[in-house]
């Protein structure tokens, strides 16, 4: 999966699951704030990532994620 495909796929499933506009999911934006995640929401995030990208992120993975760009880096590392 190319980075562009990762970005497009991510925008699709995150906007559907967390009911945000696709345009708000920008590389430099903060993932937690953009998706309005509380601690319980992370389990939903884990589920949709596993369903759509095929891997299960850990809490350690999320500690390294600030922006969507960080998330795309993680996905590239995990699936490629």
């Amino acid at each position, binding site marked *: 999966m190319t980075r562009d495909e990762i970005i497009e796929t991510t925008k699709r499933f995150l906007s559907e699951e967390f009911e945000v506009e696709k345009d708000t999911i920008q590389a430099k934006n903060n993932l937690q704030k953009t998706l309005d995640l509380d601690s*319980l929401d*992370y389990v939903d995030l*884990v*589920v949709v990532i596993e369903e759509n990208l095929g891997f299960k992120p850990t809490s350690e993975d999320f500690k390294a994620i600030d922006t969507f760009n960080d998330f795309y880096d993680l996905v590239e590392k995990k699936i490629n």
Partner: protein
Amino acid sequence: MLVNKENITQFIPQRAPFIMVDELAHADENGFTTQFKVENNNIFIEDNLLSESALTENIAQTCASGFGYLASLESDAEPKVGFIGAITRLKVTDLPKSNAQLTTKVEILTTFDAIHLVKGVVYENDKQLLECQMKIVLA
């Protein structure tokens, strides 16, 4: 049967008249199954029907008994206290009458740190009564 009615309170924090499971029939890392008979004097009976709240509580106590039982296999320490973080995708099909015998099956969908996302379904015989997803937090 893994835990009978006489011993179920060793694995759940609830006490009478708020106990909504009788027996733990099955428990492993994938999920749990309990049995529960709806007695005439159940506090959630209204117009001879057990309420949705009681069925939802039944799913929560199925989780409590299952997680508590599994924890007891690994340690003599007190079971962790569980909290319902969220209930979603609730679907009520029917309500049981008093004297109904219920079977509740819980599937652990995923676990993230101390949060377990589960799907619970309550059956009377083979008829589904209620289903929902719950986020259970063990503290």
